[in-house]
């Protein structure tokens, strides 16, 4: 039986995560960490519990957030896995499991939480 490489799958997830991080990451961090806390362009009630619960009670924003988190995690896992190899920690089956496994676990949690935000 021919063994197939897992590389196309993880590269796609890495690439998609890279595109999301590049296009949206900067503004996401700027809004959440700088503009909202400092009240620049946002009122003092921005990002409060009630407004976020109602926003993420809709399936599309909840799923969107979970997908962004998941792709960021896979992007990080892939690059960390390969860069650790460059830094002298060999790319082994165990390292692969640790990197992509934790990304998959985090994605599962994110999707579960998104579901809970929509249902409850």
């Amino acid at each position, binding site marked *: 039986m021919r063994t197939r490489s897992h590389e196309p799958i993880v590269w796609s997830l890495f690439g998609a995560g890279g595109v999301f991080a590049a296009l949206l990451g900067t503004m996401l961090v700027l809004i959440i960490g700088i503009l909202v806390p400092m009240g620049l362009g946002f009122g003092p009630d921005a990002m409060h519990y009630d407004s976020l619960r109602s926003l993420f009670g809709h399936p599309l924003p909840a799923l969107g957030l979970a997908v962004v988190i998941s792709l*960021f995690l896979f992007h*990080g896992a892939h690059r960390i896995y390969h*860069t650790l190899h460059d830094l002298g920690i060999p790319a082994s089956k165990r390292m692969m499991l640790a990197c992509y496994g934790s990304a998959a676990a985090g994605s599962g949690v994110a999707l579960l939480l998104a579901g809970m935000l929509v249902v409850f």
Partner: protein
Amino acid sequence: MTPAPKTYVRPMNRWWMRHPAYRRYLLREGTSVMVAAYALFLLAGMVCLVLGETAFNLWRGFLQSPVSVIFHLAALAAFAFHAWTWFKVMPLTTPPLRFRGRPVPDRMIFRAALWAWGIASLVLLVLAMRFL
């Protein structure tokens, strides 16, 4: 059995000290640590949001702290550097693009990506100001 010949193996210790390009490469790859860390930070926010108002106010209150501001400034630099380098290598990662039979120049792809970055950021900002 003859012993294995002693071949020269180039030492790789501290290879990043040898050339500025190697350090830029490590810095670029290092942004992924911040991308993953930020995903975990958002995930923590999601957990708090599910747990309830008290838990979420802790997460929301942390945003107000100096530690959070420093973390976010570092994250901002990492994401911006990631975006810049990601778009820089885009001509190498996209399939060969053609426009009216001619190959699209690399700097056009880079410029289009920068425009996409700006437009996506603006759209996200407008949506956030409308819905947050």
